[in-house]
């Protein structure tokens, strides 16, 4: 007997609820939805930390909403599926309705997948944990009217789910949102029927070019690879990353030589962190002291050699004296605090102590074989990449590690990195290992 959807025999009636507690569950769920969304680009979290932190907290409140029963669903959650509500509130409400054992509430979420609510509903469908959600989503997509396609296709894309025959129709749509959603979902189709669309779009200049390029690389499209090389020449971030991940030694050397180019530097530094060779670390070392890119360079070098942010001696912030705690009179008023934009996740990157890095590198360089790619101090191979997707590599970097692994295995070891972290971890644990994959080789040598 599976009790995971067990509800008490006498669910609470309206008057049984402590409504301000239920409202707090909702408010906190809304806040944590935003937080969880932000952590997908956060350099401070890895997948396990994210699952145990914001995700677990979010779902504790979602559980509070589910257990508040029918009255909560009718009076609080269903009315929140409204275009006038905050997107994060819509997502939180939809999540709670999807987790509710009464299918009618979940059906309502699918019905709310209109163009106005497409993004928050797609987010909820992407994060819902109920085991039957994948099948439910595919069935509903098969029956859905065109206005619902963008949300449902985006949810398929985030869940790494085959969108089925609806994909072909969506690609024929004249609606930009539908087309973009189809593009995002295409890499998860079991056939290569859509690769030519990805290639064509990647070669263009529209807003869809980069998503198409990355989708193509994820399924090891030659066309996408050729486009990536062209884009790299003009300093495009995705192209430069592709060169670092899939290029040959000459391409990697070319990347190192681009570092003096100020216009390209930021993207090149980021990309070299994925190239992973000792030569790349050599090239990056001078930039650890450069104010503009020091944090990025520190992150890149640390990612290659396996220095962690917990190793205080490497980071200047750890050595700075603690500022005194503010007195009550100095506290920012709550309203002012709430009015501030959410911090750029990159702001939480640490600043490397260039001298300490340099000393360490001098002492340890001999451990790193020339020409070999490393990830977190270990020679890069599928097992290491898989392990790092579980734990170690930050949320912001693991999208790229996963993308390379997917490309090199032609989609067989593909992890949807915007899926709920706990679900990602479960998928990674069950992921079949593909033999004969050499992550040291360049694109032309393995496709």
């Amino acid at each position: 007997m599976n009790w995971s959807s067990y509800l008490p025999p006498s669910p609470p009636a309206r008057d049984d609820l402590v409504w301000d507690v239920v409202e707090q569950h909702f408010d906190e769920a809304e806040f944590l939805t935003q937080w969880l969304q932000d952590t997908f680009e956060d350099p401070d979290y890895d997948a396990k930390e994210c699952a145990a932190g914001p995700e677990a907290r979010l779902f504790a409140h979602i559980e509070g909403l589910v257990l508040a029963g029918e009255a909560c669903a009718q009076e609080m959650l269903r009315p929140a599926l409204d275009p006038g509500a905050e997107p994060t509130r819509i997502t939180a409400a939809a999540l709670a309705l999807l987790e509710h054992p009464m299918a009618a509430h979940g059906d309502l979420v699918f019905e709310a997948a209109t163009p106005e609510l497409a993004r928050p509903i797609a987010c909820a469908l992407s994060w819902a944990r109920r085991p039957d959600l994948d099948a439910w989503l595919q069935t509903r997509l098969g029956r859905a009217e065109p206005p619902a396609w963008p949300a449902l296709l985006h949810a398929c894309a985030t869940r790494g789910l085959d969108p089925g025959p609806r994909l072909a129709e969506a690609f024929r749509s004249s609606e930009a949102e539908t087309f973009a959603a189809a593009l995002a979902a295409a890499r998860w189709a079991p056939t290569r029927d859509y690769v030519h669309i990805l290639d064509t779009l990647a070669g263009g200049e529209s807003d869809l070019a980069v998503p198409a390029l990355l989708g193509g690389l994820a399924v090891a499209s030659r066309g996408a690879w050729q486009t990536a090389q062209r884009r790299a020449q003009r300093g495009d971030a995705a192209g430069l990353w592709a060169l670092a991940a899939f290029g040959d030694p000459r391409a990697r050397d070319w990347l190192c030589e681009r570092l003096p180019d100020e216009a390209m530097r930021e993207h090149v530094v980021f990309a070299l962190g994925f190239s992973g060779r000792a030569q790349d670390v050599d090239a990056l070392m001078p930039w650890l002291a450069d104010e503009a890119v020091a944090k990025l360079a520190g992150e890149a070098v640390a990612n290659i050699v396996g220095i962690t942010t917990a190793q205080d001696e490497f980071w200047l912030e750890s050595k700075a004296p603690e500022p005194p705690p503010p007195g009550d009179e100095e506290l920012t008023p709550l309203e002012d605090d709430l009015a501030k934009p959410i911090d750029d996740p990159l702001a939480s990157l640490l600043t490397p102590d260039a001298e300490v890095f340099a000393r360490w590198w001098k002492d340890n360089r001999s451990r790193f074989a020339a020409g070999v790619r490393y990830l977190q101090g270990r020679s890069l191979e599928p097992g290491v990449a898989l392990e790092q997707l579980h734990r170690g590599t930050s949320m912001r970097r693991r999208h790229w590690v996963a993308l390379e692994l997917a490309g090199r295995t032609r989609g067989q070891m593909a992890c949807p990195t915007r899926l709920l972290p706990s679900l990602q971890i479960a998928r990674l644990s069950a992921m079949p290992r593909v033999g004969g994959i050499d992550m040291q080789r360049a694109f032309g040598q393995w496709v």
Partner: protein
Amino acid sequence: MGTGVHIVSIGARASVGHRAHNVAAAARSGINRFIEHPFMVDRYGDPIRVGMDVALPPEQFGVDRMLTLADTALAEAVAPIRAELAQASLVVALPEPRPGFDAQTARRFIELLQRLPAAAGIDSKRVSWFTSGHAGGLFALAGAVEELRSGRSQICIVGGVDSYLHPDTLEWLDETGQLHNLKDSRSSFIPGEGAAFCVLALRRVIASTRLPLPVEILGTGTANEPNRIKTETICIGEGLSKAVRDATSVLELPAQKVGTTYCDMNGERYRNEEFMFSALRNYGAFVDTNRFEAPADSWGDIGAASGPMLASLATTSALRGWAPHPYVVLWTSSEGGLRSAATLGLTIGGAPRGRA
């Protein structure tokens, strides 16, 4: 291993919820409901912070207030077994005698409790109570296990009810320095209120109800602490250590280590230190003795309701599949020296019980 006694159903009411599952969901997600009492002030003239059930009128206190709390929780607990109530016994843990609550109050409470619709069908000769405070509920649970195993009862309902929100009680806490305030309290707690009931039975007796039985009581332990709080003696956790040791002695270690502990620690320094000694003495039975839940963070100190409330939290965690480990310890400590503990085996979300 185990007693064969299962928790069949639960009911609970506290400041954060009026149903067991809602209470558990709020505690799990860290929600609290501490408010300033509408009219009671402490010795500094500041409003007293309390874990008050705001659905009840603030001017209501004593037996009336406790009855309302008990009615909700008992009704919820017995709803699934109402047809079986004639063969059930009921034991209720009540506060230790203190200003605002004495033996006469206890008798009157029990008398009126039996007249509640929720208690209809329970044979008055099978109703008992004792005024042992925090540890009373788990002490009653240990007694119920024996009662059921011996066949003297087919079903036992174990509950606890308490409300510190009585003017005399609050003033007394203020005088003894146990009342939390923002000025000078260093070893104090936030007074709360609540009620919880657990229906217990042997699996074979209750099988026909087809209710999920996610929690088995594996072991219990009770002891007396000679070095009590508010005395000149120094507590080194002897009583609690023994209660926990006895409760966990049934576990096959190291395979069945305890992963989660629910306790009634309330912020008083004495209680923290007592726990520390017990943790040091019993560490071998635990995955991590520091991994504990003290839900007084959510609703304050709920005194005699603590034990059944903790059992209710563990039961909900198993039913809803969020319990992180299959082996759980509950423990509680009374001012009078009674210490009681119970080890529960959880079948989480219907999955077979495995290793901790």
